[in-house]
């Protein structure tokens, strides 16, 4: 492994030989599943490539965080998550969005700020929600992890057979509220799955500059929560670890923390790149590009004869067409109408209160009473 590959804890060093990941195996995973993983990753990659290519047209007027190079983790997640589950994402939403919502259109329209976007154009890439699909994004680190815990708690109380997921990065782990959440989830044995895309950096700041102990999973375990880490560019392993762990959570075995070690190729935000700031080594980037999750899986599939090159080419073409159409439609989609600010921020109806509560008149307050002075507490 090259110097400066600080994003990985040593657990994985034996899986790397001469700069190449050698741990991939399709054992116990059927061809259809492998193909689904592959399709997911290609869809995500091509979606982001298209956003990046068109961004300079200045029609997508919101901050956009790309996850190219990290596709294998959300691919594994996509296969394990169900419609009735809830998923909360940090700012880098595209992979998590696609894992939960599958369709391109509500995301693309949202990025274009159109009324047909998942959030009606009020949120954009970093804050997008798609309520109908139980997907919620947000750009303040760690905050929504606790929200996911609350969803899990409600599921537990109401006996809802579903799980809450939260997707985030190694940066969110710096925040204290993350540890409040881990403690509480372990304490209450919540049906909660925490998915950490550990790409080794919070913006430019490497993990070892922010955390004294690199092994996040070990810290989580000390709080009483199950935790598994895996080489995050291996989509099959990602699928294996995630689906197994999620299965255990579904069986009521309590919450789990899953940590995929991966790397983002693009700059932290936007399509322009930020390597001029030299916060990471080109060697490190090269290592991870050499171990592209899509390429690793593609080579394996071809090697094992699971798929023909032709099928891949067809897939790529077909996704390209789908994207072309989605972007064309998005650009034609109407912008939101002038809004009533108050109605955007407050409910206009109170159906429950109307149903349950009577109107009463106060009989008038007797002011000749002394205020209490609280005692010692």
């Amino acid at each position, binding site marked *: 492994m090259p110097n400066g590959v600080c994003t990985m804890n040593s657990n994985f060093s034996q899986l790397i030989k001469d700069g190449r990941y050698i741990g991939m195996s399709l054992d116990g995973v059927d061809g259809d599943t492998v193909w689904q993983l592959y399709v997911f990753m290609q869809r995500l990659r091509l979606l982001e490539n298209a956003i990046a290519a068109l961004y300079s047209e200045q029609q997508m007027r919101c901050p956009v965080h790309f996850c190219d190079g990290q596709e294998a983790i959300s691919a594994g997640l996509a296969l394990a998550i169900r419609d009735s589950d809830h998923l909360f994402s940090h700012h880098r939403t595209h992979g998590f969005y696609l894992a939960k919502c599958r369709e391109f259109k509500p995301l693309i329209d949202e990025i274009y700020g159109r009324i047909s976007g998942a959030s009606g154009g009020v949120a954009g890439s970093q804050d997008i929600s798609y309520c109908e699909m139980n997907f919620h994004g947000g750009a303040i680190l760690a905050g929504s992890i606790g929200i996911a815990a609350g969803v899990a708690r409600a599921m537990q109380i109401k006996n809802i057979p579903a799980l809450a997921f939260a997707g985030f990065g190694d940066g969110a782990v710096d925040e204290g509220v993350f540890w409040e959440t881990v403690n509480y989830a372990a304490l209450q044995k919540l049906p909660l799955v925490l998915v950490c895309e550990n790409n080794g950096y919070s913006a430019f700041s490497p993990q070892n500059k922010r955390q004294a102990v690199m092994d996040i999973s070990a810290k989580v375990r000390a709080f009483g929560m199950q935790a598994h880490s895996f080489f995050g560019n291996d989509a099959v392993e990602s699928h294996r670890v995630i689906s197994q762990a999620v299965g255990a959570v579904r069986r009521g075995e309590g919450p789990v923390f899953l940590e995929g070690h991966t790397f983002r190729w693009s700059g932290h935000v936007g399509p322009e790149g930020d390597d001029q700031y030299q916060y990471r080594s080109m060697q490190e980037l090269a290592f991870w590009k050499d171990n592209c999750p899509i390429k690793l899986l593609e080579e394996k599939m071809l090697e094992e004869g699971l798929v023909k090159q032709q099928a891949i080419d067809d897939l790529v073409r077909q996704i390209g067409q789908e994207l072309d159409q989605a972007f064309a439609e998005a650009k034609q989609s109407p912008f939101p109408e002038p809004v009533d600010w108050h109605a955007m921020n407050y409910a206009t109806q109170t159906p429950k209160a109307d149903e349950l509560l009577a109107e*009463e008149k106060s009989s008038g307050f007797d002011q000749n009473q002394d205020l209490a002075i609280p005692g010692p507490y």
Partner: protein
Amino acid sequence: MRELAYNQAINEALHQAMGLDEDVMVVGQLVDYRSGIFGTTTGLLEEYGSERVQDFPVAESLMTQAAIGEAQMGMRPVLTHQRLDFMIYSMDAVANWMSLWRFKSNGKQSLPITIMGVVGRGWGQGPQHSKSFHGWFSHLPGIKVAMPATPFDAKGMMMESVFGEDPVIFVAHRSLFSMREHVPEMPYRVRFGEAMLRRPGKDVSIVALGIMVPLAMQAAELLAGEGIEAEVLDLRSASPLDKEAILATAQRTKRLVVADPAWQTAGVAAEVISLVSEHMGADLAANPARLCLPDSHTPMSQTLEEQYYPTEQDLADLCKKML
């Protein structure tokens, strides 16, 4: 007619709310002990069990985040803080998530969360146990702020908070908890943004909030002794404000004093004066005035506390200066 103390009124509201709707839950440090947050949560555990009446780790930030998740799943959580000061740990959850959730979801989701913060006063609470941030909360879009001054309102506003659709910060002044009055037994509502005229008068309007309301009533009594008829308007909610009622009382008396139990600068009192000035400043017979706390943190020593908290006499004097 049956009387209840303020804390009992809140307690009854919570009992009834939990009975009416199994989605109502009460969460907070020590809510499930017999002392029950100064009596406001007593007995809930026994009746509704530990899933719905839940002690919480000393992790205020997560507590509010979790409530946001619970509310998304249809629950109606009521959170408690023994002092409102402790709630400040959860400001990220409040300001960056809860207040904007409805907006960010493009109106598709609402969060019926009630957060009750108890404001300390007296007996040397000091600077970390006596702050009331209702001014902050009323500045923030997407949340409502209840400040009931009487047992009747405490019950009705708690009910309205729990069964309304917006997040509410419910500011309860600890010193009001022993106040008693007639409280109807049925579950009823006191709506937000509906101020109550507590005492009519023609000479000067006192617009008061929370614990300043009893003070205003006493000041009006003092003034009456001198032949001055003060009108007392209890705002009841610090957000939304009942603009109509505020303008109406100012229009009637042409003299406005705002009594707000918070630091003076850039608080709700300033908002009330601004509203009136913008709409009818030219019609006032005297320049408006505020009675607030000094722009200072709270001292512990009794002699300093006495200087810190204004009295009904201070309020009466301020009114008289206007005539």
